[in-house]
């Protein structure tokens, strides 16, 4: 458990959140608090509603019912301008990295900075870019195009692009998906470094048990739109629930 966690100070708070797409009920009444400084991992199978949940927290999707409070603001009551302001305090690392294909690494990192911190000088922008690239260990890629980067490098640059605005909350959508075990380990280490160096709270969506064990201060198991169990990694999997046992077993088999 990270020592900087401030229990009692929730940076994300969800109450009775429901979301459906047509007749498919994806989230069936989610309650969740993410404490300041905490890395919380939401584990679940594909289609369990993890990505929908993280997109609701980022304000990319609206819940059908319930309230979503992020950094003290009820996200579905904000106007577009207020939402954009709030988003400067939230970093979102996409499963696909979502780097802008037409821009090189430098321009990808500069993009959010010049739009949200218009007062910065050219020198300050260059310094900020150099710092985040150094933090993710990819200073040498500054002139490269996204198509020239490996999967792991893309993930790191995607994370650097969110860190450049110095967010208070990081949202990671499947940060290790599609990566080999060694690169996945590097990304897990980076997530922990970000928590310590930038003093962020994080919601990490994954189905990778190693990622959950390495990065999570708390783990929540999501299945069919409901939370089954939460606690430390050991607590969650010390369960007789067949859904949790199956998840652990199949994950173990597919990893070995």
């Amino acid at each position, binding site marked *: 458990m990270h020592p900087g966690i401030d229990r009692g100070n929730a940076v994300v708070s969800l109450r009775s959140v429901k979301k459906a797409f047509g007749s498919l009920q994806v989230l069936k009444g989610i309650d969740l608090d993410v404490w300041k400084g905490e890395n919380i991992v939401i584990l679940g199978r594909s289609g369990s509603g993890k990505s929908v949940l993280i*997109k609701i927290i*980022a304000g*990319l999707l609206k819940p059908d019912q319930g309230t979503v409070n992020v950094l003290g603001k009820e996200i579905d009551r904000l106007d*577009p301008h207020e939402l*954009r*302001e709030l*988003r*400067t305090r*939230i970093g*979102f690392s*996409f*499963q*696909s990295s*979502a*780097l*802008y*294909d*037409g821009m090189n690494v430098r321009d990808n990192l500069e*993009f*959010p900075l010049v*739009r*949200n911190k218009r007062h910065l000088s050219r020198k300050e922008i260059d310094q900020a870019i150099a710092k985040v690239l150094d933090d993710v260990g990819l200073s040498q890629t500054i002139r490269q195009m996204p198509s020239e980067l490996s999967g792991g490098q893309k993930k790191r640059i995607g994370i650097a*692009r*969110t860190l450049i*605005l110095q967010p208070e909350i990081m949202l990671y959508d499947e940060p290790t998906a599609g990566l080999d075990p060694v690169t996945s380990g590097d990304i897990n280490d980076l997530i922990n470094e970000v928590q310590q160096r930038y003093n962020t709270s994080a919601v990490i969506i994954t189905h990778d048990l190693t990622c959950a064990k390495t990065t999570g201060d708390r783990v929540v198991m999501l299945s069919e739109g409901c939370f089954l169990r939460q606690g430390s990694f050991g607590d969650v999997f010390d369960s007789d629930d067949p859904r949790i046992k199956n998840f652990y077993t199949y994950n173990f088999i597919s990893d070995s």
Partner: protein
Amino acid sequence: MKDLILRIYDIYQFMLRFFREAFIPPYEYKEVLNQFYEVGIRSLAIITLTGFITGLVFTKQSRSSLAEFGATSWLPSLMAIAIIRALAPLVTALIIAGKVGSNIGAELGSMKVTEQIEAMEVSSTNPFKFLVVSRILATTCIVPVLASYMGFVAMMGAYLNVYRNEQTSFTSFFQQAFMKISFFDIWTLVFKSLVYGFTIGMAGSFNGYNASQGTVGVGRAANTSVVVSMFLIFVEEMIIVQVQNSFRF
């Protein structure tokens, strides 16, 4: 039928949003200029080539019919009317629909399916303003410029054919050509091209911005952008010519 009505409603909403966002600051000047370059400068070569060939070939084809009546001296006027009133705006719009419209559909479509548009949104940038408004403004403003340019190049192609056969001087050719062209014709060329440019930008952006279903959706967005904008351009041409003629006579 219900899907079609919903689709039309979505297009209407998309268009309203364009007009709302286009006039509210902050403005994405840099991206608009970038798109002016992409749509304008990068299309110059193909517009020059097709414009010149259109003028040359159309004159060559018309010559034999006019020669039967000994009326080849009417060629400059005939070509000016055909090029300024119809060919230049129409051919330019069709070329830009194929070249730029498909590009906008594919580019925005691939950005949509690879979550780049959502990435812009979460980094506090308005993706609609950055991607859509800039592209529609660029096609709307640049197509009239390209159509005027194509009109000039096509007239040069026509002149080349006339000069080869009748040794008409440059001054004499253009004097005869513009005798039958009024300010109203030039104004209509610009107005038509504005409408076509807006249509191309709207069709490409709407289909790309709302793409789904992975790479299949990207291909579909590019294809639909071209087909829809070409179809609409012909419908608009028909309507504008009707209205234009009712003013003329």
